[in-house]
């Protein structure tokens, strides 16, 4: 009776509820109509190439760029049948300025070049990828003989030493693979003395997973999925979130006159943490008889960049010394892509992403520096 009385109450129909529901219905209609644009804008924000432009039919790298690597995991060539190179790093590995249909990215050029020698290459890259995420990819490929590479080729980017954490897509990936999770826990338990900060960080990722793990979560996901079928805003909440974050980013840039090249000093604590993760990568690679090859990524020689020059110089020296101490193949490819091959997104020279020619030149430089390593047969394991 109470509920009927409330429904018949005039205040309900004259209050804010009907208009609020109408506004939400309109917002849903708007989102339903703009669904495709929203998804495309999210992809554009992640610098993912449009399907029409991507080369070839079979994925030769993780097309989700870290959002859902499990979807492309089966596409990793069989490392038991041939030498396998995993190419990993940040957005430079897969983004192309002024792309044309059929353009290839670094890993595809490498794969083309290695295939005649009986080797294959596959890309596992993600925007702003940090060393904790690179370690996750290294470990994920290493623990399965099918995906275990002979070489893990990692393009090290100075700027990414300011980031840490596993993105939601990779956290989900860790959650979905019990073997990987066990290996992750094993690494952080066995090396806590040598890499205390990195191992504590890895432990916190596992704790985060344990907090979310329950049947209740499964039920919640099912409820969301069902609601998403009827309510477009719920179905597209992740894309709307990405758009909102992007608009906030633009607002920040406008309000504080920040550009992508505004000088940003390194964050000491995060920098140290990333260095520890690189050390862990070297250990894990050695343990699984994988060659970890490191290179300093190309940088536009004529564009401004956000690096504080003495910090960047110190980083390069440290990385070279680190590779030398650990006996890792190393190359500095900073200058391999000339100014004309970088592109001008938003009318400004891009300091980090190049045109297709840049991918070709980088792949050629990688072959020149690491050629013998990349096509070597895997040792008996």
């Amino acid at each position, binding site marked *: 009776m109470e509920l009927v009385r409330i429904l018949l109450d005039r205040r309900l129909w004259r209050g*804010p509820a009907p208009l*609020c529901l109408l506004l939400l219905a309109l917002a849903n209609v708007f989102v339903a109509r703009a669904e495709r644009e929203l998804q495309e804008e999210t992809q554009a924000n992640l610098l993912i190439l449009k399907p029409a432009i991507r080369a070839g039919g079979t994925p030769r790298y993780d097309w989700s760029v870290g959002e859902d690597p499990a979807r492309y995991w089966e596409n990793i060539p069989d490392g038991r049948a041939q030498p396998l190179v995993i190419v990993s790093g940040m957005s430079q590995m897969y983004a192309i300025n002024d792309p044309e249909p059929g353009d290839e990215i670094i890993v595809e050029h490498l794969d083309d070049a290695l295939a005649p020698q009986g080797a294959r290459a596959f890309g596992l890259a993600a925007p702003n990828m940090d060393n904790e995420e690179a370690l996750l990819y290294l470990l994920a490929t290493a623990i399965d003989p099918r995906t275990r590479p002979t070489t893990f080729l990692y393009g090290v980017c100075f700027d990414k030493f300011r980031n840490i954490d596993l993105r939601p897509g990779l956290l989900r990936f860790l959650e979905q693979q019990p073997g990987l999770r066990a290996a992750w826990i094993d690494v952080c338990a066995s090396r806590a003395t040598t890499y205390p900060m990195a191992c504590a960080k890895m432990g916190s990722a596992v704790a985060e997973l344990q907090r979310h793990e329950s049947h209740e979560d499964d039920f*919640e996901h099912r409820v969301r999925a069902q609601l998403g079928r009827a309510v477009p805003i719920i179905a597209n909440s992740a894309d709307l979130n990405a758009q909102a974050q992007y608009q906030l980013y633009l607002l920040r840039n406008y309000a504080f006159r920040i550009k992508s090249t505004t000088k940003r000093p390194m964050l000491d604590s995060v920098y140290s943490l990333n260095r520890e993760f690189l050390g862990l990568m070297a250990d894990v690679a050695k343990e699984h008889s994988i060659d970890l090859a490191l290179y300093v990524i190309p940088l536009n020689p004529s564009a401004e960049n956000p690096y504080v020059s003495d910090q960047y110089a110190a980083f390069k020296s440290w990385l070279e010394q680190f590779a030398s101490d650990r006996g890792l193949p190393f190359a500095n490819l900073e200058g391999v892509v000339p100014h004309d091959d970088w592109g001008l997104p938003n009318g400004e020279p891009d300091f980090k992403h190049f045109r297709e020619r840049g991918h070709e030149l980088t792949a050629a430089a990688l072959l020149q520096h690491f050629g013998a390593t990349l096509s070597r047969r895997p040792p008996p394991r």
Partner: protein
Amino acid sequence: MIFTSYTYLLFLVVAVLLHWSLPQRFRNALLIVLSYGFYCSWRWQYGFLLLAVSIFTWLFGALLSRRENNRRLLALGIIVELGPLVYYKYSGFIVANLEGLAASLGYAPHLHLPDVILPLGISFFTFQGIAYLVDVANGEHPIDRMDHFLLYKAFWPQLIAGPIIRPHEIRDQIAAVRHVDYADVAEATKRILYGFFKKGVLADTLAPYVDAVFQPTARPGAIDGAIGIIGFSMQIYFDFAGYSDIAIGSARLIGFRFPENFDYPYVARSPQDFWNRWHMTLTRWIRDYVFTPLAFASRRQPKIALLWLVLAMALCGLWHGGRWTFVLWGIWHGVLLLANQTFLRGLWSGFDKPAKRGRFARAMAWLLTMLGVALGWVLFRSQTVAQAASIVTGIVTLRGGLRPTVLRENGVLLVVAFALGLGLEQVLKGPAVRIMGRLRGHESVGSAIRALGYAALVLAVTVFESDVKAFVYFQF
């Protein structure tokens, strides 16, 4: 079942529809079943613990009410009530400290403790049980019907993280024929929406930045430390106040009125004022069941009563968890309250008549209060005393200069923007209420403004609350 989940919304809608569709005589039984279902959705085994504790408390309350001289019996009841709490929450803490003590004496014992998972809400339902026994021992009439008592203990909106409801606040509502009208539904819906926004949008957005600063291995600089503290001050407020909003709103949809738990704590101009606005139901519980009996016992020595204040707050800290950082947080607040009563009385009193105090005095009192509260939050959020000391030292010694060493620019900007937003909200709430009051004659305009605001909040919650995260206060 987390409050800020679609599962909970579904549960709530079904609960409300069933409750108001059933005849009155079945409603309480339905609420008991739903409450146990809610609790068991997390870990069904602990439903039996809740049931056992509830039955014991009810029976013991009946026994207490029949005895004239019942002080010893009451003490026994309180000890039994505390048993599960001590076992599940403090055994690890006690054993670790005993081991430490033995090690310092040259022994190296290894006491093994099974890994236990803390039952949700145990701190809350234990305090509720103690309050009931004390009230009955002091002459209040016990709840006669067991089903009423089971509902009082298990009613889901207050079960996990409060508000801590005392028997007299709810017993009549359980026994009465409850009603709900449009005003109740409107107010409840608004509170639930506010709760979702505070938790899902505000608290959860702040969480990763705060977590980065308080990572055990991070070595935050001065800026990170300061931003981390400000961020956590807001995160815990939005988190817990959001939870309380949803609890109060959910109860109101069923026809219950719960006491408020927060009243703009960050406008407080003294530590005492802060505790009158922060987690108010816990403050009242500590005052009535810990401090007042102790102070009464030593009423002829008022100076000792001040020490009881520190002890009561230390227990309040310990209630939050078995860690020395919580105990020190409580002691810190006890010292602040003691200062409020004694040597800083001149600074921190008289604000009940603001006209008598100048703007500067008010600003200084507020600033010092917030500084004290913020320093307390460092202890509260840190895992160890050493970590808290490191963060404070980092700020005091300007570690890292004026550049962050942990947080990126976005984190710093976001926390500052939230702090400014919270400040602005507190400043503008008065004028906003006045403006809405003036619109009473133009109801359609007022309704349109509110509709726009609510729609914006719903959209923000849907877009930003992309994954469910547990409430901070669930661990207490």
